[in-house]
């Protein structure tokens, strides 16, 4: 009994040991399985993150490159905008230093340079190409603003030599001459020209001047916003000079096919407007062209180089 029992115990112990060993093996397998699952899971995750990071780093590097480029362009534009304003101011200052037509240099540029020097003078340079100076004068009697003004204005169209400097002087009463203009050039093939207005005894008591841009492309539009709203306002010319003289003068009176100058002194305003008409389409400077895109203008913009667009209506 005791042997049996001992044997029984031994059997059960072996059995227990064996079943314990089997349990242990299963447990070990389970533990190992979990371990392997976790381990490889982690490895897989790490590998996945590493792959993702490689992609992200490529993206970061590309973004950093883009950002640097954008920053450089922004900086370049800011500096260029600021120095463009300063450069324009300096060029205007220079034009005002010129005292007569011989002071106007032989600029190497594609733009029209114009500056009023004092009230009575226009210092002008036109680049290569065909240009015409249009001088428009209008004299009105301010006592009778509603009176018939026909015959009280005149337009002169003067073809200019390309790539040359010009000087227009308005004869004003202070110089004791009849009111008119004198145009001279530093181009040897361009003779001086002059004209006077049919007014007698003009005595002035004031002048006013409207400023114009000193540096313009030929046919550069004056107001890009207006052009987007009203394509009919596009002109093939640029404004270069405005002067209004106020005073008194004797206006000519037509009588029996004769023009008489024996009338009374009338309060008079004389306006001089000068424009340069050039070959080619109206243009807009690239710095002003954005309005056409923003306002979705029907006008077509064709880039002509050197920062200007030619404008074409559909």
């Amino acid at each position, binding site marked *: 009994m005791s042997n049996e029992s001992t044997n029984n115990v*031994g059997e059960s*112990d072996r059995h*227990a*040991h064996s079943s314990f060993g089997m349990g242990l093996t299963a447990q*070990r397998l389970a533990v190992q399985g979990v*371990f392997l699952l*976790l*381990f490889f899971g*982690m*490895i897989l*995750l*790490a590998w*996945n*993150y*590493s792959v993702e*990071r490689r992609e*992200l*780093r490529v*993206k*970061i590097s590309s*973004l*950093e490159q*883009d*950002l640097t480029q*954008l*920053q450089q*362009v*922004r900086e*370049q*534009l800011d500096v*260029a*905008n600021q*120095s463009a304003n*300063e*450069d*324009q*101011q*300096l*060029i205007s*200052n*220079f034009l005002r*230093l010129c*005292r007569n037509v011989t002071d106007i*240099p032989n*600029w*190497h*540029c594609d733009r029209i340079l114009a500056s009023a020097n004092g009230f009575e003078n226009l210092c002008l340079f036109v680049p290569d190409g065909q240009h015409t100076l249009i001088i428009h004068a209008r004299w009105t009697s301010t006592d009778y603003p509603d009176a018939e003004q026909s015959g009280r204005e005149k337009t002169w169209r003067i073809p200019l030599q390309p790539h040359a400097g010009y000087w227009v002087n308005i004869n004003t009463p202070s110089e004791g001459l009849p009111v008119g203009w004198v145009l001279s050039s530093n181009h040897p093939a361009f003779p001086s020209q002059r004209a006077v207005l049919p007014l007698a005894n003009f005595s002035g008591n004031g002048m006013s001047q409207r400023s114009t841009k000193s*540096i313009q492309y030929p046919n550069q539009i004056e107001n890009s916003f207006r052009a987007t709203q009203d394509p009919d306002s596009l002109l093939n010319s640029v404004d270069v000079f405005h002067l209004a003289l106020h005073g008194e003068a004797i206006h000519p009176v037509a009588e029996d096919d004769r023009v008489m100058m024996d009338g009374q002194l009338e309060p008079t305003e004389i306006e001089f407007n000068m424009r340069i008409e050039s070959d080619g389409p109206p243009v807009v*400077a*690239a*710095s002003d*062209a*954005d309005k056409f*895109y*923003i306002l979705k203008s029907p006008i077509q913009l064709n*880039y002509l*180089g*050197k*920062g*200007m667009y030619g404008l074409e209506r559909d």
Partner: protein
Amino acid sequence: MIRFEYDGRAREFSSSTWTWAMRFSLRSLIAWSMLVAAALLAGGGYYGVQKDRQRIKQLESEMEPLANSLLVADSRRHENLRHSLEGYAELQSLKQQAIQHAAAIRDRYSGIEKRGPDAFSIRRIPELRVDRSLDRRVFKLMVPETRQIWLKFAVHPSEARRGNGNKNDQYNDWLRSSPLTDSGPLQFQLPPGEQLLTIQEQQTDGWRAILLKVGEQTLFETRYLQVSTNGFSASISATEQVDVGPTQELPWLLSVEIEANSMNVPFSSDFSYSIWLSDKPSQFETMNGGRDE
């Protein structure tokens, strides 16, 4: 635990368990280490991914306003910005040409002729303003040996100058205290012969420095903390030579209205300084002009 009651097997069993336990410990140590390493690797990867994503967000947020300002979304408008740079390039070239030509114009108009033994002559030399912080006026003078010509500097309320025309010598209430660090009034007898007079204002760090020079000799220097400079006026604005005989009044050269900050005056007010020429000396101190440049 019961199994320890049995001899032999139990010990045997105990020994095998211990061995297994020992083996398990080493294995588990390695396993845990590997697991921890893998976890760290994965964690590090996750942290790195998050960091990179944040960096991308940061870069994108930095790029957005820049891209908007540079109109990147609209290729035509973006291209237009590049075109405007091409337009500016020509302006730079024009600026360089202007600076070169200005030297020629300056040479052309810087000569002065002697017009008789008693005539004082003056002309303003054309000067291209290149540096916006520097405002300079240069005059060429011909001082006759037979006359005493005094250069004078004084500070006064702006209104006083306006009401005074060009009779500066008849005005007596010059200010000795003003926003200027040195208000004068001062005078300097110009030496005979051809002289170059420079009057300049230069902006540096909020201060505006006024400098008077004859030739290379600095006569006088003063400065003020600028709020604004209201107006400039100079009677000799033309570049033509002006001749002044002994019976004619010598010209005033410059009056500048300033608004300045100062500890010397209790309230902000308009001040002007004037620089003019005179045949007669005043009860002013002499500009020492002790410094040669």
